[in-house]
C-alpha cells in the first residue's frame, strides 16, 4: 500500500494489527494511520484492552490422562493396567547408572547446559546493541525478520530525521518526543 490508508480500510484490519498478524508493510501503514487518527486509535486501544483481558484469564489445560479416562468412560471399560510413568522410568534409569556414572553424567549435563546458555546470552546482548545501532536491519536480511524489529529500523530512521530537525535554530525540539512509535 503506497499511501496512507483511510479509516474504512484500516478498521477491519485493526484486530489483526493488535494481534501482530498483519504483514510488515500493512502493519506499518496501519500503524502510521493509527498514529494520526484519533478514532482508529480508540478502536485499536479497545482491541488491545480486550486482548489484554483475554490474555489475563487462566489457561485451562486438559489433564494428561483426559483422553484415556474419557475413552474408558465412553466404552464403559475399566482403566488399563498401570504403566510406569516417565518420571518413574527416568528415576529407574538414573539409579541404574551406579555411584560412578551418576556424578559423571551430572557434570556432562551441567557443561552441556551452561555453554549454550552463555552463547545465547551473548548473542541476545549483541542483538540488542545491533537493534539500537541500526545494524540489526542488515542482519534481518539474512533471516526471517519480525515485523516489530523491521518497524523499529524504520522508526529509527525517522527519529534521526526528527532529531536533526529539532536541532535547527528554528526547529521544534518537541519533535524528539514524538517519534514514529504509535505508542506516543
Amino acid at each position, binding site marked *: 500500500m503506497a499511501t496512507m490508508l483511510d479509516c474504512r480500510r484500516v478498521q477491519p484490519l485493526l484486530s489483526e494489527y493488535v494481534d501482530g498478524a498483519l504483514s510488515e*508493510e500493512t502493519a*506499518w501503514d496501519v500503524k502510521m494511520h493509527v498514529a494520526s487518527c484519533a478514532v482508529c486509535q480508540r478502536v485499536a486501544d479497545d482491541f488491545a484492552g480486550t486482548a489484554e483481558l483475554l490474555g489475563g484469564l487462566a489457561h485451562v489445560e486438559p489433564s494428561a490422562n483426559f483422553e484415556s479416562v474419557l475413552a474408558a468412560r465412553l466404552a464403559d471399560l475399566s482403566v488399563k493396567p498401570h504403566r510406569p510413568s516417565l518420571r518413574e522410568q527416568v528415576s529407574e534409569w538414573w539409579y541404574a547408572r551406579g555411584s560412578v556414572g551418576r556424578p559423571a553424567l551430572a557434570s556432562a549435563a551441567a557443561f552441556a547446559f551452561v555453554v549454550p546458555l552463555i552463547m545465547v546470552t551473548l548473542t541476545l546482548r549483541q542483538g540488542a546493541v545491533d537493534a539500537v545501532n541500526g*545494524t540489526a536491519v542488515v542482519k534481518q536480511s539474512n533471516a526471517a525478520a519480525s515485523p516489530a524489529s523491521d518497524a523499529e529500523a524504520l522508526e529509527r530512521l525517522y527519529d534521526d530525521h526528527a532529531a536533526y530537525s529539532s536541532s535547527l535554530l528554528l526547529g521544534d525540539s518537541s519533535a524528539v518526543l514524538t517519534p514514529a512509535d504509535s505508542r506516543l
Partner: protein
Amino acid sequence: MRRFSPTNGQRTGGAATTVAALFAVGSLVGAGVVLALQAAVTPTHAWAQQQAKEEKDASKEDRAVRLLRRMVLAEMRKAFVAREATLNADGRGTEQWVKRDPRRGIRRESIRPPGMIWIDNYRRSYRINTRENRVVESDSLLPRPDGARVQEFLHRFTGQLITPEVVGEDRVAGRSAHIVAVTGPATVRRFWIDKKTGLRLKTEEYNRSGKLLSSSSYSSVDLSPKFTEEDFRPPPDMRVVKDNRRRFDSLQAAEKAGVKVARPRWVPAGYGLRNVEALRDGRSVTLRYTNGIDVLSLTQFAPDKAPPHLRKRVEKEGSSFLPFPRGQRGYVWRDGERTFLLISSLSDDQVRRVAESLP
C-alpha cells in the same frame, strides 16, 4: 496706462507696473523652477507607493528577524521550566516538562504518555526509554550558545526563499507574545515570542496548503527554576547503548574517510548539505540537507542491506511513498542494487526530481 498723482502730478504708475510685472514673472519662474526640481527629485506616484511599501516590508522583516534572533538567544541564555503540550492535526497530543539551563543543557521528559526522556548537555545527547531501562547515547544535537552563529544564520533570511514576518499578537500561558510567521518553500512555521523575555511560548507548523501539521505550546512557565546536576545526566542504573554512526560536516570529509555516497545533482533551491552520517559497518549512509526550517534526509543502503520492509515494498510496488508523523513522508526507490529512502516534506514532483538526479 499712465497715471498722475493728484497731489504732485508726478508719474507713479510706471514703477508700480514694473514691480508688479517683475513680481509676476519672478513668481512664474520660481514656480516653474520649484516644479521642475520637484519633478526631478520626486518619483511618480505609483513608484513612490511601491517604494514606501518595500520600505515598510523591509522594516517588518527586520523586526521579524530581530524578534527571531531574540527568541533563539533567549532559548540559549535563559533558565526556565515549562510544561508543554503538543497537538497533531488529528487532535492527538502529548505533554512534557521542558527544563532549560543555559549552562547544563536541556531536558525533556514526557508526562503523557510517560516513559521517554531526552537530555542534551551540549556534549552528549541521551535518548532514554524508561520502560526498557535503556539509553541511546550520541553526539550533542544542541546548537552552542553562540550569538555570532545566530546572527549569521538569521542573516541568511534576507532575500532568501524563507521570509519572516510579524503577523500579530496573542497571549499564551498568561503572557503577551508577538507572532512571527516564517514561510519556507514547503512549510510555514509560526512562533509566539514572549514580549518580556523573548522565549518561544508556542510553535505551529503548517504545510503550504494551510493544513496544521503540529503545534506545541507552553501551558505554564517558571522563570526562576532550581536545577540539580542529575537533571542533565542519564539515570545511573540504565543500560547505555553507544551510537555507531560517524558524522561528517561535508561530503569531502566523508569521502576522505572512505565513505562512498552518491550525491543528488538537484535539490530544491535554498537547501544545502549540512551533515553526512555513515554507519560504521558501511551498511547505510544518510545525507541531510536543510534550508533553515525544513530537513531532507536521503539514506542510501548498500546492496541487500535495506530494511526488509522497504525491500519488499519496492520489489512489489516499485518506488512508493510511506507516511511518517508531522507531515513528513518517505519515498523509497531502487536503482540497480542500491535502495534509497528520502524523508522530507517536499512535494511529489520535487521528491521525484531529487530521486532522478542521482547518478
